[in-house]
């Protein structure tokens, strides 16, 4: 069993990893993002970023979490029916700024944390920059 399969097994995810365009994707299913962050910490994976996409209509958001494991780019897509997901900032301090940036750009709420302004200035509103309805 290779390291990626071992990670999926520890997370209890039965669906296989899918490699596409140099990214190893794993659908997290019911696994929470915090459990995932703990698993990534356990294998010393390096957190890279969260990429947020607003889905059409009222479908919510898709957040793609990326880690690097020995040069392999790992991707975990999370679908948000509403606009909130648990914060991993206390488990993975590298996620601090990008959680704040996604919050400011898309008005996504990361539950369990407070925000200090990152790129917003007085009078700005979260979601002013990248949300469809704000364009």
């Amino acid at each position, binding site marked *: 069993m290779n390291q990626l399969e071992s990670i999926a097994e520890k997370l209890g995810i039965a669906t296989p990893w899918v490699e596409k*365009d*140099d*990214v190893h994707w794993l659908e997290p299913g019911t696994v929470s993002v915090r459990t995932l962050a703990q698993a990534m910490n356990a294998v*010393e994976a*390096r*957190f*890279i*970023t969260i*990429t*947020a*996409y607003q889905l059409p209509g009222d479908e919510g958001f898709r957040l*793609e979490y*990326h880690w*690097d494991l*020995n*040069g*392999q*780019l790992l*991707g975990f897509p999370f679908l948000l029916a509403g606009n909130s997901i648990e914060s991993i900032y206390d488990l*993975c*301090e*590298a996620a*601090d*700024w*990008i959680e704040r940036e996604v919050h400011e*750009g898309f008005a996504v709420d990361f539950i369990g944390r407070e925000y200090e*302004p*990152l*790129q*917003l*200035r007085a009078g700005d509103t979260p979601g002013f*920059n*990248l949300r469809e309805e704000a*364009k």
Partner: protein
Amino acid sequence: MSYKIPMGPYHPGLEEPYKLDLICEGETVKDAKLKIGFNLRGIEHLAETRNYIQLTALMERVCGICSNIHTLTLCQAMEKLTGLTPPPRALYIRVVMAELERLHSHVLWAGIAAKLMGFKTMFMTCFELREKVMDVLAAISGNRVNYSMNRIGGVNRDIEDPLALLSLIDALEKEMARTVIPIFTTSTTARKRCAGIGVLTREKALSCGTVGPTARASGLAQDLRRAAPYAAYAEMDFDVPVQPDGDVRARLLVRALEIMESCKILRQALTKMPPGEIDTGDDKKIVFTAGTATSRVEAPRGEVMYSVSWKENSKNPSRVHVRTPTFANMPAIRWMVIGARLADTPLIQASIDPCYSCTDR
């Protein structure tokens, strides 16, 4: 009693617009808060209003120092969405441009670091050397800053006589080996101002997600040119300098040694450059498939990552997300300055080679 000293967003010690709020007791820094966003340009939003040609020109402006790296990363992502594979000669030219850009970035940083150390003669020496690298970049591309070399499916300009550039690389390497590296590694000024200052442990470097020379100076050995090769890097022989100490001196040494490795890579790329076309010639029939593609490149400051998303039959991308190396490295400054002397903080923050143009993209 503790007191707060604000540095920035406009301050002689920080030459780009960001702010460090330093909590001090006496001359010792007890904590720090960092603030960015003073020049946010909204480039990710603008990208959604551009076609792929305009997008390449726009993303070249994300960074003033490593403009080429941003178009390289973008083009690699767009090539995944279009199925285009650049010809081998184009991949070699991309390596040459990327390494020349790394050289000028590292030499620029060495000059600024020398100035912050109070070593102004060295600043002048470094900037004179940087001019020579800029001359090579201008000779290839016609430009000193925004080179416009990358295009989807290849590059815009050929290097007609690659071997003619070897003498310039030799001269540059000789000068680096004769002056810059010995002075930075052995001079009392450099040692006293840098050794044991601004330490970032391996554990903190990993938990902060640091990249590039900042991470490698804290013992994390990753370099995407080796770990996940792109362009023609798989065909290049080079070492990845790593230092364990995590201080300013370690970051200085990593970059100094990387300059020599860049010269080694440049010599190989120029000597072995294969003949042939420099692009796929498919300009008129580029079709984007709907979906998302991700690309990573080792910029002078570390990993750059682009996620590019396209909708069916759309001229413009629906999303372009840029994760720059300074965005990853900058939060680590807090841990570097805690316990440091106030007077060392300008040099410590400069030791990650920060780029706020990238960060405020």
